[in-house]
């Protein structure tokens, strides 16, 4: 029996209110001055009209730009360490896009498989992801080249698809199934609704026109790894800022800093970027002092090293690095222009 439900768009506020009793509901918001997933204010659903994707990727809700790892106090006996309070509220992210949900699955490989990161996992394991299919992808989006479709996802717990005045709701995981079982006020979807959703998904899929060819990409990158002239040429206009990495939904590098003022302090971790020369600065040398080496690192990490380690490309085609780049440096153009044929 089909377990698909539906909800009127005008009832989304009610749905989120209901979920707010159990979760900290996060939804697309411009409240802070930039599009981000922020705590829902309990009434505003106008994001349904403007939301295409957030500038700050939802990774920030699990791996924030900065967080306190622990605080410490110093006295005669030495240091006393105090761990931060764990927020008991479980996050429910409403409206996450398939590209960003896939990105979290990619981040899990680092933060869960490679090692267990307690800060990330505490937030991640308790969270519920409610996906919302794209109806209007940007011209910078290229998710379909990476096995993602803008309105389909297996990386969320529930998936919503726009079918006109309503959203079709699909249960993707057991967590999603449980949530739906506890949520009153949803209607059963009809076969017509499902047919409409199928059509909507296809329409969205076809709206993504930017493409990359990932076939043999690892080998191609390996083959031109030492082509210094090529990398210098494509790196020339990069300004080495952190936008493409910080706002990439799959980039996870961080820096750790201590602050000690008088007798107390804290250890913080914050986003770091391979675009910064300081990132690889060591006492005697810097293996990536030249800009082209840093640009190469970013491209190769995503399309060569990550696939070698985890068998998945660390890019979901969300297009943020293209849209937000100060100089319109475009990863899709670069991958297209690799000076090798394999």
């Amino acid at each position, binding site marked *: 029996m089909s377990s698909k439900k539906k909800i009127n768009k005008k009832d989304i506020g009610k749905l989120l209110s209901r979920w707010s009793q159990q979760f900290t509901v996060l939804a697309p918001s411009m409240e802070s*001055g*930039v599009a981000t997933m922020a705590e829902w204010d309990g009434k505003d659903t106008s994001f349904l009209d403007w939301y295409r994707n957030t500038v700050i990727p939802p990774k920030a809700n699990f791996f924030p730009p900065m967080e306190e790892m622990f605080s410490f106090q110093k006295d005669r006996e030495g240091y006393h360490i105090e761990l931060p309070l764990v927020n008991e509220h479980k996050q429910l992210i409403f409206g996450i896009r398939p590209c960003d949900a896939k990105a979290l699955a990619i981040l899990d490989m680092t933060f869960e498989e490679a090692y267990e990161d307690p800060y990330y996992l505490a937030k991640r394991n308790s969270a519920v992801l409610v996906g919302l299919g794209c109806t209007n992808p940007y011209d910078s989006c290229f998710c379909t080249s990476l096995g993602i479709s803008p309105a389909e996802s297996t990386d969320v717990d529930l998936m919503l698809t726009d079918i006109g005045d309503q959203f079709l709701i699909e249960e993707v995981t057991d967590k999603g199934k449980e949530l739906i079982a506890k949520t009153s006020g949803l209607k059963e979807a009809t076969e017509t609704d499902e047919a409409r959703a199928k059509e909507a998904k296809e329409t969205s899929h076809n709206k993504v026109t930017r493409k990359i060819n990932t076939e043999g990409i690892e080998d191609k990158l390996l083959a031109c790894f030492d082509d210094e002239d090529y990398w210098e040429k494509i790196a020339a*206009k990069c*300004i080495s*800022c*952190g936008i493409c990495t910080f*706002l990439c939904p799959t980039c996870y590098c961080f820096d750790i800093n201590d602050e000690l003022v008088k007798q107390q302090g804290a250890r913080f971790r914050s986003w770091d970027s391979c675009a910064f020369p*300081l990132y690889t600065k060591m006492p005697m040398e810097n293996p990536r002092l030249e800009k082209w080496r840093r640009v190469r690192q970013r491209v190769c990490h995503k399309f060569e090293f990550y696939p070698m380690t985890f068998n998945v490309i660390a890019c979901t085609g969300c297009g943020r690095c293209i849209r937000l780049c100060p*100089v*319109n440096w475009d990863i899709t153009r670069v991958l297209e222009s690799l000076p090798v044929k394999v």
Partner: protein
Amino acid sequence: MEQRLRNEAKALLEQGKVDWIIGFESGSLKFATTPLITKDKNDADRLVINPFMVNNLANFLTEVKGRVGIVAKGCDSRSIVSLMQDNKVAREDVVILGVPCRGIIDLSKVERLVGKERDELDDITREGDKVAIKVDGEKKEFLATEALFDNCLACEFPTPQEYDILLGEPSTSVVNKPAAQEKIEKLKEMTPEQRWEFWKNEFSRCIRCYACRNVCPACFCQRCFVEETEPQWVLPVPRWQDNLIFQIVRNIHVAGRCTDCGECERVCPVNIPLRSLTKEMYDLVDELFHYKAGMDKEAAPLLIAYEYAEAEDLFR
């Protein structure tokens, strides 16, 4: 103008007068341009001149070795001159291909004007003192002053002040100083407490990507103070206090070098109105020292020169 630029650039490379050409080519997104940095004369045909040339290319001058032919708008030319004043580049190593500028279109303003995002628009054209936007097949006209960047509306020198080749007739800008100052005036009307709250709020969302710093030709320190570890002036952690200190010190460091090109504010991914700080500093520099950045390549840089008479004005 565009064809002439291509010809001049090609000739410069062919005749060996420059090793590099730095200009703009069409970008990969609608209405975007992207810097073209090349040694190849065949690339010259890709050079463009249009009202979307946002970048201040002076930023790349210090990155390439050899002689450079560089495309410059009014503000960019002043940044180039400022770099000459600071001995970062030599006059004889630069061939300035001056573009008389009529203002650059602010796509964020265009988006607000028509309620659509840039990739949803069919066309944007500059027609005299109007900007025409074609959306959903319908053409809408706006005053250019509604669609240009704030800094363009305050532009005093749209025609390059220093050039080797001027690619067109000197231009007059479409200024609208009140509009250009609007955000700044609002801040001035606030009480100090309100202003403090305002900036605290703005800098709370800074992610310290340093795009503002890295896109700025006046920010050329080999090692930025925020990256010093002994002493550590601020933490690299994006707390609002550290973010604010970073930006205040950056602003002081570019005083007398900032040409109000507006790039810091444009590139900020989290929409912090940085020009409200830099423009205020620009005006203060003018008021206190009667100095405008990058106007005279022979002049000493503002903050390394001292004239006795200045004291009267400055300390009060």
